[in-house]
């Protein structure tokens, strides 16, 4: 197996790129074509953009702006639509973990920013995802002050529950779910957070308030509604299940029925 890899590493590729360039939120953008030669299959997709940017700087052109930080698929900073798919063709993989070995010599790759009203483009491939922070601020936590906690073993939690909470908690808030959804809904993002807490005893006193406020905030921020397309689950780099959305709906209905109206005091 390592033998195959060595052979592959030596083969360099030529890659053509069509990249969305946009000066700022208020200006119109357009696709611009570039070519990068000597692309190693072991290079990550974002490293390809790094190499392109070095070339652009050399020529005195403006480099392509894109967000990236950990490059390990966990911080959620990166996020570009690659050939029409949020984070590109590889399932369960953020753009930073997508390697060029999944492309072929001579390919033309189209690169766009997330497109959603709630995520305005700031420049090129950089978008403003602060709406996610505002949704979390509306209830995506357990309200416990530092120092109030009882001993960690005071409440045993079944392993299954802890594991399911963890499955949901893995969300990295990259926004691919929104970018992939025809309605630009943030349902999967919110459902992941709400689901995490439905499995755990912590935070139950505020569970109704949480779901009502977070859903209301999602609507205010301009995200669309969920109509079960399932595109979100398909592109999620952390494979958050669409089942979390069903769970959120149950949680929401229970809260509305219990508290009446929108239920928010």
């Amino acid at each position, binding site marked *: *197996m*390592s033998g195959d*890899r060595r052979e592959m590493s030596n083969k360099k590729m030529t890659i053509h790129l069509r990249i969305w360039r946009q000066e*700022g939120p208020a200006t119109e953008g357009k696709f611009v074509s570039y070519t990068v030669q000597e692309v*190693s*299959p072991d*290079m*990550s997709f*974002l490293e*390809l953009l*790094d*190499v392109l940017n*070095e070339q652009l*700087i050399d020529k*005195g052109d*403006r480099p392509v*702006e894109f967000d*990236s*930080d*950990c*490059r*390990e*698929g*966990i*911080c*959620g*900073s990166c996020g570009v639509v690659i050939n029409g798919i949020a984070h590109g063709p590889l399932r*369960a*993989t953020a753009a930073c*973990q997508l*390697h060029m070995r999944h492309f072929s010599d001579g390919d033309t790759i189209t690169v766009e920013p997330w497109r959603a009203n709630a995520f305005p483009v*700031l*420049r090129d491939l*950089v978008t403003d*995802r602060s709406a996610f*922070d505002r949704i*979390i*601020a509306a209830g*995506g*936590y*357990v*309200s416990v002050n530092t*120092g*109030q*906690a*009882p001993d*960690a073993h005071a*409440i*045993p*939690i*079944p392993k299954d529950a*802890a*594991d399911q*909470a*963890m499955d949901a*908690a893995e969300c*990295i808030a990259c926004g691919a779910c929104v970018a992939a959804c025809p309605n630009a809904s943030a349902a999967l993002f919110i459902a992941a957070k709400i689901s*995490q807490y439905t499995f*755990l005893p*912590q935070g139950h006193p505020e569970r109704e308030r949480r779901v009502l406020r977070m859903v209301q905030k999602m609507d205010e921020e301009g995200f669309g509604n969920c109509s079960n397309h399932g595109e979100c689950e398909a592109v999620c780099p952390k494979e958050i299940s669409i089942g979390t959305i069903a769970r959120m709906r149950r949680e929401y209905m229970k809260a509305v029925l219990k508290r009446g109206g929108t239920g928010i005091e």
Partner: protein
Amino acid sequence: MKLESKVPGGPLEERWDRHRAEIKLVSPANKRKFDVIVVGTGLAGASAAASLAELGYKVKAFTILDSPRRSHSIAAQGGINAAKNYPNDGDSIWRLFYDTIKGGDFRSRESNVYRLAQVSANIIDQCVAQGVPFAREYGGYLSNRSFGGAQVSRTFYARGQTGQQLLLGAYGALMRQVDAGQVELYCRREMLDLVVIDGKARGIVCRNLVNGQIEPYLAHAVVLATGGYGNAYYLSTNAMNSNVTAAWRCHRRGAFFANPCFTQIHPTCIPVSGHYQSKLTLMSESLRNDGRVWVPANPGDRRPPQDIPESERDYYLERRYPSFGNLVPRDVASRAAKKVCDDGRGVGETGLAVYLDFADAIRREGVGYIQDKYGNLFEMYEKITGEDPYRVPMRIYPAVHYTMGGLWVDYNLMSTVPGLFVLGEANFSDHGANRLGASALMQGLADGYFIIPYTIGDYFAGAELGAVDENQDPVKASIEECRQRLEKLLSVRGKKSPRQFHREVGQILWDYVGMSRNAEGLRKAQSLLSEIREEYWEEVRVPGEAHMLNKHLEFAGRIADFIELGELLARDALHREESCGAHFREEFQTDEGEPLRRDDEFSYVAAWEYRGVGEEPALHKEILEFENVELATRSYK
């Protein structure tokens, strides 16, 4: 200036309790009159900002990223230590304290480390209460595993994403305070300067990274939690935006920089694959619980790993360190890997790698067991390398990971600039010359949740803090300096991109101030770096303009600071004529090649005072006093 550590007296076990009983308090009604700036929103910053806001202080929190939840603490994989002794295997506060002091090779402050061990248990309680989904056993209780440098299982974890889950807990607490109006959150802001008025830290100057505006923010105190400087080496496990600029700007304003040469090279990272490489990826130390490290016994053996029989393999960690085996501390494991590769027994294309092999564990426990414990790490490895670690051993090599050095702080976590507190990786305080695995998360959260909330009140209650405003000269001067520096970077229009410079600086540091150092190399590094510093301001080519989103301009400023820091790093490494922890000076080793500490001469913290660009900094020594532990030669044999 004399360094005063402000360590309280009395028995070690009672110091923190006594200190808390003796320090001054700010009444609930008065807390709202104090503004606190928190820079950085990783574990230390987010936990501090949330906890201070809960107490009633008015907090402004800043991050260079687009959301606090993306701070690099999120990438910590393996776990967090705490002296809970839930497994009943002999752990205690004392033992965690001792392991940490010993792991740091006796170059940290006893009182700080003991306090860290004391509050470690509270951290787990707090995080569980926040809904952090730690791994659990079928009985519903928390699961533990082992990390390097310890013979007990005290590490709590959430799969291979412990940092993520702890950060999301702290981030949730922070966003709750944003919702309550107690915290004003400023994202995509980069701190470019510290504002010092009448000798006290009173604010910061930031660049708004979206529109390029230079913005001053003022407060009664500044809390810096901006992480480490590992990215000075260009290739490291740090995130692309991790940098030293905020800390370095504080250093230039009077904060001493302590032990910069204590940089941790982590033994288990995915090896470099090419020139384009932008960063290195860690494979969690927790893998060493089940993975066995080996290389071919014979130099030049190029057979695939499965074709090399047991008898021709060298499990060198198990051989050299039988009692700790694959779980020796990071510095020991890294040097051992470097040695076998230097001996020509490295594997992979470059020969700069060793195997981390799970075949035995898979045979013993089954694939399911490995999947459950490390599944996401195995997937990540396969994504990056294209190889399946369930079938072939991982190839790993050491990479720069963490920096024990940082801004000097006293017991209250205050720097040499009054009113400037430094938390987490950005300070130097707890890990001595080498940090043990799963202790960074512990320290970040200890500082933020349980230490700064007490010590900042003591400062406010005792300090004279008059009103300040943006029209005061120090604020205006600082804004002007920041603006001019950006303009200067843009006006050079030279031939080399910031990244090219960064790569060169990183190579120098890696070659001469890396895992193995000697006087000749360190002098060479110093002269090369001072040349690069001058060349930088004549040859750098920064694209774009200042008044817009311009990431290359951001990077250009950070690289200029990395160069200056690099000079200090080399200087510190040259002056410390001993080997301790991660700092290995070839001239000072035992016959067996183990580090040789020189306690009589170097049992101190080296705190450097800035004296100007290219000027020799002044060295101040904080003598380390060991009243409770005996200085011993570290042995993991």
